[in-house]
């Protein structure tokens, strides 16, 4: 806990705020990419403390928010099969697909279990040889290595009753889309620290150069976020644009090579639909041919593209709109009856605004 509380120290935070205020000479628009960062910003009320010139846009880094409705529908159809024991991370359970959520499917009789790791799902597969265990492999570069290692283990142990429904997303291609879509306003990015701990910084350096955009690899505690903002503002004020690391206690330049190797052994990049945003080229992962025997997605057909949703999650996650600018925010769309995914997960920007604003 000490390692966390020191980054929540009010004196340190006060100093960082003063340094930011001293450096800002004009308004700047920054985006924090990760839902964990958004959660922290809103939970700690950081926006109230920042100088008026700093505007924060909230990015697409909420893994359950970007998982397409059609993939959740596939998950539910798998979970409803009597022989299937369907495993998912906790906060995916509440997110509705085009109709229902996994939690509703569970209430209607499907065997849906909350797990903390794909390795828990592997253990269930070993303990229940007469059941088909399907793991819902969602998330960014942070969760993909665990999925990869589970699949390598399943292959080595020839576990025939384990499979995964994959919806893994890659952050850099999405940032390129955001930089293009939001080029008129977006001036700097706080990149997701935990993702970079896996991937390293190389792709972010390339993005910074290509879009002339300052990018600061940023952590999740209030002091981490302020440090990221400070370094971003310093680049902007001095007219520079490069990728730098403000989360060096966790992120190494080259990332985690073991995790990278596991992911590239099991997966290859593929085009991926992001809920509310659409298909982004080469922004997802699919199983390589030698792992396709574990692909639960092949056992169900993906539905036709989801009908137009009332939720404007795409515009929100691209930073084009804030939650309060949605006509349904807090009225028809509330955590107890969400119109879209960002109102569901605690990392979803609308849920964070609703809960903490």
């Amino acid at each position, binding site marked *: *806990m000490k390692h966390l509380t020191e980054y929540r120290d009010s004196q340190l935070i006060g100093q960082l705020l003063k340094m930011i205020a001293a450096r800002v000479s004009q308004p700047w628009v920054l985006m924090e990419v990760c839902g*964990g960062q958004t959660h922290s910003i809103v*939970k700690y009320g950081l926006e109230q403390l920042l100088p008026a010139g700093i505007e924060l846009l909230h990015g697409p880094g909420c893994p359950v928010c970007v998982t397409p409705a059609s993939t959740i529908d596939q998950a539910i159809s798998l979970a409803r099969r009597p022989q299937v024991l369907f495993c998912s991370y*906790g*906060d*995916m359970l*509440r997110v509705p697909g085009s109709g229902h959520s996994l939690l509703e499917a569970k209430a209607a009789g499907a065997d849906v279990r909350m797990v*903390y790791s794909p390795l828990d799902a592997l253990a269930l597969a070993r303990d229940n040889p007469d059941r088909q265990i399907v793991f819902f492999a969602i998330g960014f570069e942070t969760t993909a290595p665990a999925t990869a290692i589970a699949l390598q283990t399943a292959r080595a142990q020839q576990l025939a009753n384990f499979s995964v429904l994959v919806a893994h997303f890659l952050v850099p291609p999405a940032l390129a889309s955001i930089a293009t879509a939001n080029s008129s306003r977006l001036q700097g990015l706080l990149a997701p620290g935990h993702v970079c701990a896996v991937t390293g910084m190389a792709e972010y350096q390339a993005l910074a150069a290509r879009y002339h955009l300052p990018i600061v690899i940023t952590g999740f505690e209030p002091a981490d976020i302020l440090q990221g903002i400070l370094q971003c503002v310093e680049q902007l004020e001095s007219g520079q644009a490069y990728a730098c690391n403000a989360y060096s206690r966790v992120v190494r330049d080259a990332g985690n090579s073991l995790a990278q190797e596991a992911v590239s052994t099991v997966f290859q990049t593929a085009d991926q639909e992001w809920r509310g945003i659409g298909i982004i080229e080469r922004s997802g992962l699919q199983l390589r041919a030698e792992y396709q025997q574990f692909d639960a997605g092949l056992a169900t057909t993906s539905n036709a593209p989801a009908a137009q949703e009332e939720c404007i999650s795409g515009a929100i996650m691209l930073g084009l709109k804030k939650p309060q600018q949605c006509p349904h925010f807090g009225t028809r769309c509330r955590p107890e009856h969400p119109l879209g995914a960002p109102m569901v997960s605690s990392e979803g920007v609308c849920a964070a605004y609703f809960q903490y*604003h």
Partner: protein
Amino acid sequence: MPDQPEFNLHCPLPSSPTDVIQLGHGDGGQLTQNLLQQIIYPRFANPELDRAHDSALLQLPGNALAFTTDSYVVNPLVFPGGDIGKLAVYGTVNDLLMAGALPRYLSCSLIMEEGLPIATLTQIVDSMAAAAHETGVQIVTGDTKVVDKGHGDGLYINTAGIGERCTDRLIAPQSICAGDQIILSADIGRHGLAIMAQREGLSFEAPLSSDCAALTGPVSALLAADIELHCLRDLTRGGLATALVELAETSGLGISVEQNSIAISDAVGGGCELLGMDPLYLANEGCFIAFVAKADAEIALQLLRQHAVSASSCIIGEVSDSNSGARLQTSIGSERQLRRMMGQPLPRIC
């Protein structure tokens, strides 16, 4: 010559297992009677229960009573720091105390699932008896039912309780006044996280244990003292945040609390960080908040700190006439609105 199979006479009637609850234990016949005579009566023994009548006949002085009920469905039945039996007594006792009443009588309904080990039932009834003894209540009436295997979760317990109001003052949300100090009796979140860890098979470096406890000692002391005590609330489901939001709404006043004053143990804080949970929303079973007039807050604190269960009591905030709901002053100097808990807390993915 091959061995001849041994010739055995045996009775064709299936032998019934005696070490688990069967449907027959709930049918009102001999098995029910055995259960009552062997397990329930000896442990809960008191003159009213021993009468074995359809209702208990109670004598209470005066008319000022408090009456409450609660059902307990916790899984697992036994967890670090307590079990469903202890919880079923303490929970109802605490609800009576929160209304300014001293608990006197409880009822106890056991809804058992076929196959529940009798040893487990015995352990839980023992635990209820000990908790009743500790808190000075008598379990004077009850019921047992059995549901088919697969239609229950081992054991559900309902307890209802009657308490004697020992003060003329209305201890209730409506009595909260602007200026009241809000005292929190202990560190929060231990029960919720301990249950989740046990249920999900999570282990943490620091052991987690439920705070499950009776609040009789500290609350009796507050009620007996000549202080302006306005409201009490135990912080069960929904945790501290939900309790504050509800009380702000019911009283129509503003509540402001300081994050830095709210005690959270390292074990709970660390577990919450790992799982992405907010301790303000975790359930507790042994802590409460008290709303006390400012002039009496120090006396209340001194009284509370004399009891082990509330030894770390401290003032976490105060009430204003702003009608602005419940607000948290964060540790870094900002402010945020508290909201009710939405659905069950689920761990975040990253």
